[in-house]
């Protein structure tokens, strides 16, 4: 037990792989991060607004704040979602944005003259 507490503490201090530490551990199924990010993009457009809104959700989850469609909402009931301190939630969302950033995947083809 002390060993587990120590590992968690180290991970929290380091803020390394926050998604894995705080999300994947509890969600038994695979979390479709890309789909979540794309949905957040559709709704909020900018990284600043995604960070702000998703952080708000993670520190105080509720059905009205979730961006998930009704079908998925039932599978992951927000009311049972744990709450996180703001700094932890922000770090996890930043990691999500960094990991799933679509713009990074773009390339500009050479223009035909």
């Amino acid at each position: 037990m002390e060993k587990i507490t120590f590992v968690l503490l180290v991970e929290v201090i380091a803020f390394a792989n926050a998604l894995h530490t705080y999300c994947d551990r509890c969600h038994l199924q695979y979390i479709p991060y890309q789909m979540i990010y794309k949905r957040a993009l559709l709704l909020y457009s900018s990284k600043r607004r995604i960070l702000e809104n998703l952080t708000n959700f993670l520190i105080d989850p509720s059905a009205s704040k979730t961006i998930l469609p009704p079908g998925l909402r039932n599978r992951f009931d927000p009311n049972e979602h744990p709450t996180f301190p703001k700094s932890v939630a922000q770090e996890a969302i930043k990691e999500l944005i960094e990991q799933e950033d679509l713009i990074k995947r773009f390339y500009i083809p050479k223009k035909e003259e």
Partner: protein
Amino acid sequence: MFPSEKKSFYRFLAIYIFSTLLLVLVGEYFYYTFALHKIEDEERRELKKVSNQILWRLKELHQSFSKKLEYPVIKGFHSAIFDIDKNYLIGDFKPNIPLQEGSFIQGDLFFLVRKVKPHYLGAAYLVVAKKKDQQAYNNLLKELLVFTLFSLVVIVLTAVILGKLFLKPLKETVTLLDNFIKDATHELNTPINTIITNIELFKEFNPHLKEDEELKRIEIASWRLQKIFSDLSFLKLHHNIKKNIEILEADEILRERLLYFQPLALSKSLAIFSTIEECKLEMDRNDLETLFDNLISNAIKYTPPLKAIYITLTPRELVIRDEGIGIDKKDLEFITHRFFRANKDKGGFGLGLAIVRKICEYYGFELRIESKKNRGTKVTIRWRK
């Protein structure tokens, strides 16, 4: 073409051309605005079509799970997307423009900014641009220039034709009047000279009748007739006569002319006070005599009996002041116009002062007429301006 006719013709041309051209330019302005909007509408329509293509492609890319995403580049156009905080996301150019929905021209690019919702790939604004269709703008300007030049030619031609058409009756009237004066002066010349010569002969052969009142009246009437004849001849033939410019002793000539008018002045019991200094003038003798004659005869004509006329000649100026009926203030500016008569009771054609003005203009003399109703008139001629 007579000078007055030429003046009227050019005035008509100027007014007609200016007003018609103004009308054409106003019409062209409206056409230009309309055509400009048409060109811009066409550009906007094209940009909208391309922006729809890009939006459709952004939607596809948003749903794609590929590792690499190819940004849609369309030949002849530029595009870029911005997030809701107006941060540049990606594009084949990076425009520095205000992100407000609509279209506008900046530099040589025509921009269309569209809001995007839902925000595929995070895009809140899509900017599409293309090079302005400069050829279309140039063609429009060329078209307007050609039309303006063509209109100008048509307007000038129409103005010339209309002007000549309108001035034809006036020209005919002036020619008729001119011909009449020419014929009348020609016909009057011989009988007038015959009368004057025969009066002189009659006086020579009958010295006892020299002071006869009836004969004096005939003589004065003949002189008046000769004066009218010489005035009409002067105006008609003035431009045709070759002037013999020489140094004249104006004081001598003035004394001669005063002697000539003495009987007329005496017949009205007028006193003429003259102060004559030596004065030399470089001009035609006939012109100087006509100048003196017109001013002296006017003074005698419009001064009531028993009054006085004051004449001063100096190397600087000639001043003739009378105690006559004077001229109304409102008539003063027209008094030197041809055929204008401020007083119609005294007879005459209203040519005297018009002739004086013409001579003064020709030699560059300064003519000044001051007058007070029922107090008299003062005419001053400064020899050089």
